[in-house]
C-alpha cells in the first residue's frame, strides 16, 4: 500500500490514542503529539519523519499495546446467542460450549435467567475453572462471610436464587442481567449450583457480547 493511503487510518489512530490516553489516564510513557508532528511527515513522507517524532510514535504504539493487551473489550454479537442448561440436583459441570462463541473468547457479556422447581435456596456459579464447589452463603443472617465461605477467589459470577428460610422463592424465574462471565481456555464455561438440595431447574442465557 502506498504511503499516502495510510493517512486516514494513521490520523484516526492518532486521535484514538489521545482519546484513550485521556480516558485511562495511565500513560506514563505517553508523549503528546502536536499539530506540527502530523503535518510534516504527511507533507513530505519519510524524509520529514524526524527521530523525535518517530520516538513519539513508537512510545504511543507501545503504550497502546500495553493498555489493550489483556483488557476486557466487549464485541457485540450481531444477533445475541442463547444457551439453555437443565439440571437435576446439585451439579458441577465443566466445559460447557456455546455455538458461535469463538474459542479465543475470554469473557461473555450475558443476561442469565434461572428457574427452579421448588423453594430451594441455591447460588448459581458460572465461570472459569470451577474445579470444586465452595460454600458461598451464610447460615445465620448477618454472619461474617469469610468465617463460612469457601475459597471465593475465583473467576466466576455468583447468582443468588432465593428459597427455603429466605421465606420466599421465585415463581416465574429470575433474570440476572449484564453479567461478565469469565471463560475457560477454548471459550467454554463451568457451572455449579452448590446449595441445591435435589431440585430440578434451568439456566437460560442470552449472550450479547464477548471479549477475547
Amino acid at each position, binding site marked *: 500500500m502506498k504511503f499516502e493511503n495510510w493517512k486516514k487510518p494513521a490520523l484516526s489512530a492518532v486521535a484514538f490514542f489521545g482519546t484513550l490516553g485521556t480516558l485511562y489516564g495511565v500513560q506514563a510513557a505517553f508523549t503528546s503529539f502536536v499539530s506540527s508532528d502530523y503535518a510534516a511527515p504527511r507533507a513530505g513522507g519519510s524524509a520529514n519523519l524526524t527521530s523525535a517524532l518517530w520516538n513519539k510514535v513508537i512510545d504511543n504504539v507501545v503504550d497502546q*499495546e500495553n493498555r489493550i493487551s489483556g483488557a476486557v*473489550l466487549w464485541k457485540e454479537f450481531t444477533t445475541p446467542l442463547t444457551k439453555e442448561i437443565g439440571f437435576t440436583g446439585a451439579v458441577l459441570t465443566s466445559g460447557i460450549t456455546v455455538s458461535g462463541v469463538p474459542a479465543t473468547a475470554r469473557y461473555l457479556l450475558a443476561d442469565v435467567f434461572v428457574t427452579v422447581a421448588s423453594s430451594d435456596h441455591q447460588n448459581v456459579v458460572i465461570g472459569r475453572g470451577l474445579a470444586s464447589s465452595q460454600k458461598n452463603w451464610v447460615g445465620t443472617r448477618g454472619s461474617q462471610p469469610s468465617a463460612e465461605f469457601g475459597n471465593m477467589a475465583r473467576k466466576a459470577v455468583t447468582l443468588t436464587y432465593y428459597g427455603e428460610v429466605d421465606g420466599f422463592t421465585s415463581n416465574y424465574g429470575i433474570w440476572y442481567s449484564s453479567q461478565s462471565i469469565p471463560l475457560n481456555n477454548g471459550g467454554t464455561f463451568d457451572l455449579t449450583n452448590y446449595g441445591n438440595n435435589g431440585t430440578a431447574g*434451568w439456566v437460560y442465557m*442470552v449472550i450479547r457480547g464477548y471479549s477475547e
Partner: protein
Amino acid sequence: MAITELAKPVLAAVATFLVTGFALGTNAAFTAFSSVDYAAPRTGGSSTLIGASWNKILDNVTDHEIRIGSTILWKDLATPIIREIQFAGSVTATNVSIPGIPSNARYVLADVYYTANSADHQNVVIGRNPTTQKNWVEPTRGAQPSTQFGNNARHSVTLTYPGNNDGFSSNYGIWYPSQVIPMNVDGTFGWTNYSNSGSNGYLYLVIKAYSL
C-alpha cells in the same frame, strides 16, 4: 534518556506484541517490531529503514483499531445523569432520550431502580428496540424456559421485579446496578415492562458512562 535505558522497555514491549499477536490470533496485519526498528530511527537512522519500520507502526496501529474499533469503551460522565420515567400499567416498547448522552452512543452503563405500587410481577426490558416477548415461566416454576419464552435473542437487559405468585414483592424498590444497556442508533433506549398487570410506578436510572 540514553538509548540503553530505552532498550529495556522497548524490548519488553516487542515481546508483548509478539505474545499478544499469537495469543489473540486476530491481527492479520500484525508485523512485529525488531530491536533494529527501534534503535536505528532513535539514533537518526536511514530513511529506508524508517520507511520499512513506518509500515510496521501503521500495521500495528491498524491492528489496534481492528481490535478496539467496535468494542465497548466506557467514557465517564463528569456527573452522572439521572433519568426518571413514570409508568401506568403495561408499557409497550417506548423510546426514551437521555439529555447529555451523545446521539451516537451505542451503550450506557447505568444503575437502574424500579418500584411498582403493588405486588405485580414484571420483567423490565431496557435496550435497543426491545419488543414485548414473554420472558418468564408459568404456572410451574422450574419449567423449561425455551418452551415458554418468546424471542429473547435481543440487545437488551432484562430485570426481574418479583410479585404475584412469587409470594414476595419489594416494598422499597429494587436496584439493578452496573447494567450494560444497548442503545438505539439515535442514542435513545427503548423499554417495556411487558407482564405488568396494571400497577403504576417509576423507572429511575443513574447513568454513569457511555460508549460510542
